[in-house]
């Protein structure tokens, strides 16, 4: 399954091995791993909680993967996104793109992350010393996604 939403952690090596399989046409795998930081917007963060819109999230991510496959000459894409309570240093998201060459794999990986950030219905709530707060969307994320619009 190229798109997975899960509470459990993931093993990057095992996931990439599964993505590659024994396909000798794959010459490059580009991957991105998103992690929980211990600070945001000037405050210490002790925990985040990730919420999503079941059903729509899977569809939105699959649409992004399909678009990446249509735009670049790549073999396969894997997206894993965790939900629930996470702590600093925990893994949040894995995007891995396998292809014949690195150029397309790098570009498609960045594209999938940029679109995921701005189009997939996930929301983060942070716990800080001042209490809980919903994370604000960043205009820099919108700008990053805008680069790919054509």
């Amino acid at each position, binding site marked *: 399954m190229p798109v997975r939403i899960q509470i459990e952690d993931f093993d990057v090596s095992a996931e990439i091995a599964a993505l590659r399989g024994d396909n000798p046409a794959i010459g490059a795998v580009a991957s991105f791993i998103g992690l929980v930081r211990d600070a945001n917007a000037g405050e210490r963060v002790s925990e985040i909680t990730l*919420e999503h819109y079941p*059903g*729509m999230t899977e*569809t939105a991510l699959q649409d992004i993967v399909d678009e990446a496959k249509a735009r670049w000459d790549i073999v396969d894409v894997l997206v894993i996104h965790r939900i629930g309570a996470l702590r600093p240093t925990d893994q949040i998201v894995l995007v891995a793109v396998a292809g014949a060459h690195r150029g397309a794999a790098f570009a498609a990986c960045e594209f999938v992350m940029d679109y995921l950030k701005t189009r997939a219905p996930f929301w*983060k709530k942070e716990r800080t010393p001042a209490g809980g707060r*919903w994370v604000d969307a960043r205009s820099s994320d919108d700008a990053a996604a805008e680069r790919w619009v054509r």
Partner: protein
Amino acid sequence: MENSDLAQKSRASAAQAETIDILYFARLREAFGVASERMVLPRTIATAGALRAHLHARGGPWATEFAADRPVRVAVNQVIARAETPLRAGDEVAFLPPVTGG
């Protein structure tokens, strides 16, 4: 199936057919204190934008969160929609704060 069962089933689906399900996520769910509601769709509400205006008129947190300058998006049947997107009985309408995954 007995005719009475059929009639009952038909009435049930007719009642369902006049309603929409509304979902609220993240900040909105907390502000309203409710994750979802089933609403009988008034004839006056034909679009997603009209529904937002209707909810805004409830006042209090509804007025705050659905103020015109708040960046709330709407999805109809799990697809991002626009204010002019028509609503039909049986639709699932979700109000979404700006997304912050990844």
